[in-house]
């Protein structure tokens, strides 16, 4: 079995290496064949491993010893349990779909082989992350997906916005990683191991400890540090700023990395660490509040976006917020369940948006679309499914997972849960609004694409020659694009029906831990009466009606009275500006952090290094030597009589001194 486990990450790695280094020799077709083959192998193996895990075979073992020092043995190894295998399935399936889709999306791009190499490398890194049985490998995967994300956001490296966005993404993530690494180091220092099982076995000891220097309760410090890492990777407030900008990357990776998989790494990580988080209500409270803020406030921004990809991006932020709230409510299985359903319906939304972008010749502004459903029926249908699922309406996947989160947050007892419940409900309305706004704006209403362009620029235009901005005639996209859409739309509808098994069937077994005092999940399990029961009950509760009224509002504003949004925008003045400025985070970060760091650097360099150290100390001491020798030189005149006079004077002075003493 161990060989099989190894093969799962290594197959995409091999694909990445082949396409990356031998892309020229393999050619375009050869490159996509090897990478797709690699990912397909990993998907099939994941299915096999899934069946094996279902049969009760959990694996935890080392592959090799990475390093050993000071009593700390760090190994590379795998932990294969239900949580891992679920992630493996999601990652490899979405990745496979995205690989196929890319054939169509990147067809004309000169960086074709490079792109396939990157996404396969990403798949490898993500698999290493989810399959890790220790913190070192987790951190490796964590940083490696960050690297590939950096490379892919900046894929079109000649575009200033893209290379700004990728640097920003990397640095903001590094801020998160800073916390993450401190958390890992604290664990190493106090648990003496970085192996999950060993650390979890010591959890009760850890819970009793305090951090020696700071006096903080150790477990709270550890969990908050780890969660800061998750905030970076999973784009939680206030480290969310990189995700919208990451839309500069090609759309397939927005679907794969910035929606379905990488950004959920933080959610996965916290779930994996549930034995630790369960010991600190303070940390859980922190988690739930951050999640709540992200959920509501990012959803609000989505309403005012006009770029089709950015709407989906802000929607992703909001959905990640939901998952984070679930974590804070100790409903880890629900968070993972939403992670899974979200991976499907958000991938559909992103790939659908990509399909629209192809059809529109790389136009991304929704103000230049409208009425597309006639021209692109498959894209329309699949995106509609994605939007309904995103809004959380039954019987689509999003309903089951989102409703469970809201219920879990409702039942949560940690401080801040009330605030979170409010945010969760409000965001349901907003979610319905922006999801259907996207659909109506793009696919319904007046056909605006024949109008001459104003100021709008497609953000996804590869290169100058593709970026037609004249009138375009949209058309349905080729099969390599639509087939993955359909294949992803199926689980976007149906994966929610697994709720009974995944949440209430003890499916996760020992991979998730919930403390006795956190009764939310137990209560929910008690109240759960099957898929149909949940739907029947769902339509009588507030979230359903909120989502529906959100959708209705969108219908009214964008179909019935399309003139209204402009009026509302004008009337709401400051509020609209705040949303369009995204609460001013970007401006503040640019000014305070980027500007401040440069100012400080320049001050230290010019003031510290050049003036004080070099000016005063180094050249100053050289100058002092020069000055003293200049003084001394005055006496070295070379005239004998002056020396003679000096000598006589000296002798006289000495004699006087001697006689005076005597």
């Amino acid at each position, binding site marked *: 079995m161990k060989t099989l486990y190894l093969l799962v990450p290594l197959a995409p790695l091999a694909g990445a290496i082949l396409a990356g280094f031998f892309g020229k020799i393999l050619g375009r077709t050869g490159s996509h064949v090897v990478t797709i083959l690699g990912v397909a192998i990993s998907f099939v193996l994941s299915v096999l491993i899934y069946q094996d895990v279902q049969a009760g075979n959990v694996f935890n073992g080392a592959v090799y010893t990475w390093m*050993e020092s000071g009593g700390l043995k760090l190994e590379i190894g795998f932990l294969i349990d239900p949580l891992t295998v679920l992630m493996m399935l999601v990652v490899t399936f979405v990745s496979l779909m995205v690989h196929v889709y890319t054939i169509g999306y990147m067809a004309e791009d000169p960086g074709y082989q490079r792109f396939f190499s990157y996404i396969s490398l990403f798949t490898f890194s993500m698999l290493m992350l989810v399959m890790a049985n220790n913190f070192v490998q987790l951190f490796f995967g964590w940083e490696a997906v960050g690297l590939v994300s950096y490379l892919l956001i900046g894929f079109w490296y000649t575009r*200033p916005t893209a*290379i700004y966005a990728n640097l920003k993404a990397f640095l903001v993530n590094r801020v998160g990683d800073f916390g993450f*690494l401190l958390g890992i180091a604290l664990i190493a*220092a106090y648990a003496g191991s970085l192996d999950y099982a060993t650390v979890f076995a010591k959890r009760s000891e850890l819970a009793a400890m305090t951090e020696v220097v700071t006096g903080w309760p150790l477990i709270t410090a550890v969990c908050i540090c780890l969660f800061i890492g998750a905030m970076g990777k999973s784009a939680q407030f206030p480290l969310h700023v990189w995700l919208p900008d990451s839309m500069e990357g090609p759309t397939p990776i927005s679907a794969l990395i910035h929606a379905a998989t990488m950004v959920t790494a933080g959610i996965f990580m916290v779930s994996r660490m549930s034995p630790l988080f369960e010991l600190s209500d303070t940390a859980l409270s922190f988690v739930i509040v951050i999640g709540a803020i992200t959920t509501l406030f990012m959803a609000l921004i989505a309403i005012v976006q006009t770029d089709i990809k950015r709407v989906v991006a802000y929607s992703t932020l909001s959905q990640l917020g939901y998952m984070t709230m679930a974590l804070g409510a100790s409903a880890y299985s629900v968070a993972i369940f939403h992670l899974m359903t979200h991976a499907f319906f958000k991938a559909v939304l992103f790939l659908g948006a990509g399909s629209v972008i192809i059809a529109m010749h790389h136009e991304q502004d929704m103000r230049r679309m409208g009425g597309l459903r006639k021209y692109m029926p498959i894209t329309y249908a699949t995106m509609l499914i994605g939007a309904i699922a995103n809004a959380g309406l039954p019987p689509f996947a999003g309903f089951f997972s989102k409703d469970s989160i809201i219920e879990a947050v409702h039942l949560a007892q940690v401080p801040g849960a009330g605030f979170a419940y409010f945010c969760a409900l409000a965001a349901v309305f907003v979610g319905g609004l922006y999801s259907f706004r996207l659909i109506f704006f793009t696919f319904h209403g007046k056909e605006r694409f024949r109008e001459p362009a104003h100021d709008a620029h497609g953000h996804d235009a590869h290169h100058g020659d593709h970026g037609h901005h004249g009138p375009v005639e949209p058309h349905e996209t080729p099969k390599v694009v639509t087939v993955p859409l359909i294949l992803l739309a199926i689980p976007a509808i149906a994966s929610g029906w697994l709720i009974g098994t995944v949440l209430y069937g003890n499916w996760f077994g020992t991979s998730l831990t919930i403390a006795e005092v956190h009764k939310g999940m137990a209560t929910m399990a008690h109240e759960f009466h099957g898929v149909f029961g949940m739907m029947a009950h769902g339509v009588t509760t507030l979230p359903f009606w909120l989502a529906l009224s959100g959708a209705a509002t969108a219908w009214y504003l964008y179909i019935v009275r399309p003139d209204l949004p402009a009026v509302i925008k004008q009337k709401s003045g400051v509020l609209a500006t705040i949303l369009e400025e995204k609460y001013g985070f970007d401006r503040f970060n640019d000014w305070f952090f980027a500007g401040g760091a440069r100012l400080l*650097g320049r001050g230290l360099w010019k003031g510290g290094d050049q003036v004080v150290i070099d000016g005063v100390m180094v050249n100053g001491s050289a100058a002092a030597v020069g000055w003293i020798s200049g003084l001394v030189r005055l006496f070295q005149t070379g005239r004998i009589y002056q020396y003679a006079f000096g000598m006589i004077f000296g002798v006289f002075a000495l004699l006087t001194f001697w006689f005076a003493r005597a």
Partner: protein
Amino acid sequence: MKSQLLSLAIWVPILGALPVFWLGSERRTLVRWLSLAVAIAGFVVTIPLYTGFDTGTAGMQFVEQAPWITRFNVQYLLGVDGISMPFILLNSLITVLVVLAGWEVIEDKQAQYMGAFLVMSGLMNGIFCALDGVLFYVFFEASLIPMYIIIGAWGGPNRVYAAIKFFLYTLLGSLLMLVALIWLFLESGGSFNILDWHHLRIGIAPQILIFIAFLVSFAVKVPMWPVHTWLPDAHVEAPTGGSVVLAAIALKLGAYGFVRFSLPIVPDASHHLAPLMIALSLIAVIYIGFVALVQTDMKKLIAYSSISHMGFVTLGFFIFNQIGVEGALVQMISHGFVSAAMFLCVGVMYDRMHSRMIADYGGVVNTMPKFAALFVFFAMANSGLPATSGFVGEFMVILGAIKFNFWVGFAAATTLILGAAYTLWMVKRVVFGEVANDHVAKLKDIGGREFLVLGLLAACVLAMGIYPFPFTEVMHASVDNLLKHVAVSKL
């Protein structure tokens, strides 16, 4: 076991340099190939040091002993342990790469250039394996001469200022060390054997004085804040090969001095002054990180980045736990690969554009894709990305630092953000973007020789990142022994 391996490691490059000098610069082809042959031979003779190394003992291995100046009991005493052995291999490998890197680029007095590097390589090996105080001092000082000549003769326009600054800075530092060595000689009843000094009992006042004497000498070499300002100047003016050796090896000499002299000989003073050392190290990490951010000259930026990374090394030594000290040593080796590669990358661009200014570049990836891939890879290693060697040392030191004191670890970990910021911001401005100007548009991608040099380093960086086990394995016994020495008071 009777072995001449260490003598070979020292004298093969030095003696091999003689025919290179003798050939003169007229016969360029012959000079190059002979230099390469000598450098490779110099590397090959060091390989048995690793393969034949006994990881089970902390004692000195491959020891050679012969009387030298009997009047003062000075000996030709060589030996290596797990701390010094890796650096001999690193140094000999880097020499091979430096010879390859100077293959076509150096047009003026190539024989002297190659010869100087070969001599320096031998002298550096001597420093790492000398176990006699005087012998160490002779090698330590002698290695200044070729570096001084390399900067002064093949350097940039302001090379004379830089060379003199480099020379005076380091010479002034090491004079105090000589005083300390003589004091130790007298105190130990007439022995220059460094290992004998490890067992000396010394009062606290002299311990502190000795510590300071060594500190001044080693801190300049490392270089530690605030005696670091010679390094950016030296790097900027030095030819590529000079920068490579300076960053990869010369900076390690100071750090090595701390573990060979300061820590084991005056442990009480080391403990007393550890807060100072930690503070200086953290200033190097943070202060210099910010300074690196605003550099406009690539070589200066990498020079400052080196100082910042060396801050991790001195930090690791003075938190006195095994993972910290081993992490510092790993960081030294890794920095040898990564900084060498970074300087070589700048060299590759400089050879084509004759500019080191970031502002003169932009969009290099368009014309030099292969080079850009390697450069981004090394930049990532410089930012400490896992699976590269850059991560291992930093990670270990941070683990050690958190164990020592949370806030020290906290301050050290800021390098995660700062290191990425200054390195990747440079990459953004140099490598990515539209082709910035006609000069960039005319750039030719790297050829086979350049690819070989950078590719070899990339392989080392990757191998050490994926499997650092062998590197730490050789250190365990020696570091363990060192820490035992440090833990026992010598008062």
